[in-house]
């Protein structure tokens, strides 16, 4: 017997003038891979200075959405505006300049395995800043200290544990003092204590650097801890957006099923 769930209409995530919006505007973005339509006319607003957590089941397109923001993927249709600039048609040179404003923590950290931790962290400075070697090293060490990796600067990524890799990835992400930090599953695969340490780091960086953060996760403990606002992605669309308290108290059946981890509900089990 099928149950009819009352699904509220999706939240309005549009603005009248995206060019005048201070944060990030994702406007009607669609993306397919072969026959699979991952994003369907997706709209999302990310306000300046907030930590937005995007939740949703695995394979719903959260990471795909994140990669569109830095144009690692191009949308089939739709537009993305960052601080009033439309990035979909941006030429390579201004796109590279724009990317310098971003830090990105990958799910697997994506450290360059032929380089030491310190070289990984300092690479962006070496490439983009006309600094002396000493100044670059000092900044890299400062970032490694911020994530608690002071004694690991000369280690190779293969010598690090999963949590240390994530922290090294985070140090690399903040080395250029970015305005935006994107986190792709920052706590996946980590033990609860290391996960909490990563969450604390995200909050600490948010407070110290005042960045706009977008966190993609399905770890609800992490989401509740770091979020200012949460948005839920399901079936290629943002179906819910609200503060942490609103998420806790909402009767939206999809959100309830997700945060309670029920197999029964409108999201289905498989």
């Amino acid at each position: 017997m099928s149950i009819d769930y009352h699904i509220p209409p999706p939240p309005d995530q549009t603005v009248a003038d995206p060019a005048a919006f201070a944060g990030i505007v994702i406007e009607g973005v669609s993306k397919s891979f072969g026959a699979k339509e991952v994003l369907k006319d997706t709209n999302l607003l990310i306000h300046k200075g907030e930590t937005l957590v995007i939740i949703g089941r695995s394979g719903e397109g959260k990471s795909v959405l994140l990669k569109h923001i830095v144009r690692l993927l191009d949308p089939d249709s739709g537009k993305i505006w960052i601080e009033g600039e439309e990035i979909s048609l941006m030429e390579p040179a201004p796109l590279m300049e724009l990317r310098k404003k971003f830090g990105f923590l990958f799910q697997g950290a994506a450290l360059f395995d032929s380089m030491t931790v310190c070289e990984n962290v300092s690479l962006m400075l070496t490439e983009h800043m006309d600094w002396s070697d000493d100044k670059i090293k000092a900044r890299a060490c400062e970032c490694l200290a911020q994530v608690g990796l002071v004694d690991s600067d000369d280690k190779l990524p293969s010598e690090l544990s999963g949590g240390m890799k994530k922290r090294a990835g985070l140090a690399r992400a903040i080395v250029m003092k970015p305005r935006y930090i994107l986190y792709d599953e920052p706590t996946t695969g980590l033990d609860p204590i290391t996960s909490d340490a990563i969450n604390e780091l995200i909050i600490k960086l948010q407070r110290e650097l005042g960045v706009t953060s977008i966190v993609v996760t399905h770890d609800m403990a992490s989401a509740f801890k770091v979020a200012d606002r949460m948005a839920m992605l399901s079936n290629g669309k943002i179906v819910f957006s609200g503060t942490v308290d609103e998420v806790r108290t909402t009767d939206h059946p999809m959100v309830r099923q997700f945060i309670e981890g029920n197999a029964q509900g409108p999201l289905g089990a498989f």
Partner: protein
Amino acid sequence: MERFFEKIGHKVIVGLLNAGEGTLLLRSILLQTPYIWKMRKEVLEQMHVVLIGSMPLVLVTSVFVGAVTAVQAVYQMQSLVPMKFLGVMISKTVFIELGPVLMALVVGSRLCAFYAAELGTMKVTEQLDAMNIMAIDPVRYLAMPRFWAATLMIPIVTIFADAVAVFGGYSISVMTLDISSGVFIEGLQMFYKHSDILGGLIKSVVFGSIIALSGIFNGFHTRGGAEGVGRATMTAVVGSCLSVLVADYFLAIILFQIIFKK
């Protein structure tokens, strides 16, 4: 039957698309070449991989290529051609054909597999994406140094291989085939032309660029996990070997029937 033609058509289209994308990659690499001085550390590291890393392989391969050429030449020439022509036969075969082609196949396969596997692993572990987000162009940072290292170093490896192969042929001829040292060396000098070595070197430069391009292209286009890296490596090596052999034919016509023809 219809399905068979559909498959053939699909493969042709994929092949043409890859050729087009490979050409675009070559264009990007050439556009990044002005930054070669800035990237000199990476270029030198890659040159070291090609030159020093390949030496044991080159040494063993070349000695035996020279030795086999000598044995085969003596067998073919006996009672038909005087042995004073043995040196010229070995040197011309090695300089024009065996040196450049065998080095492109042996050293090239090693290098091509290395590039494809290394860059393919970087692709599937999102290291290339990380580089892009860090506003570092992977073509400038990874492809351009590898391309020029292979293109410039494969000819040097080939010169070394030519010398070792001729020495191998000489040693076997003198030690086991009853050819005197003087007869062999006289033969070496007999019909020597600079264009033989130059032609072989021009071939090596082209082969080096084909090898690098195949490895880099397949590495950058790797999809999936470990299986994808394996498939990319296999495709890169097969593509490189086939391209080298096809290019060898056209270069032989251009170099020895048009440019160096008296």
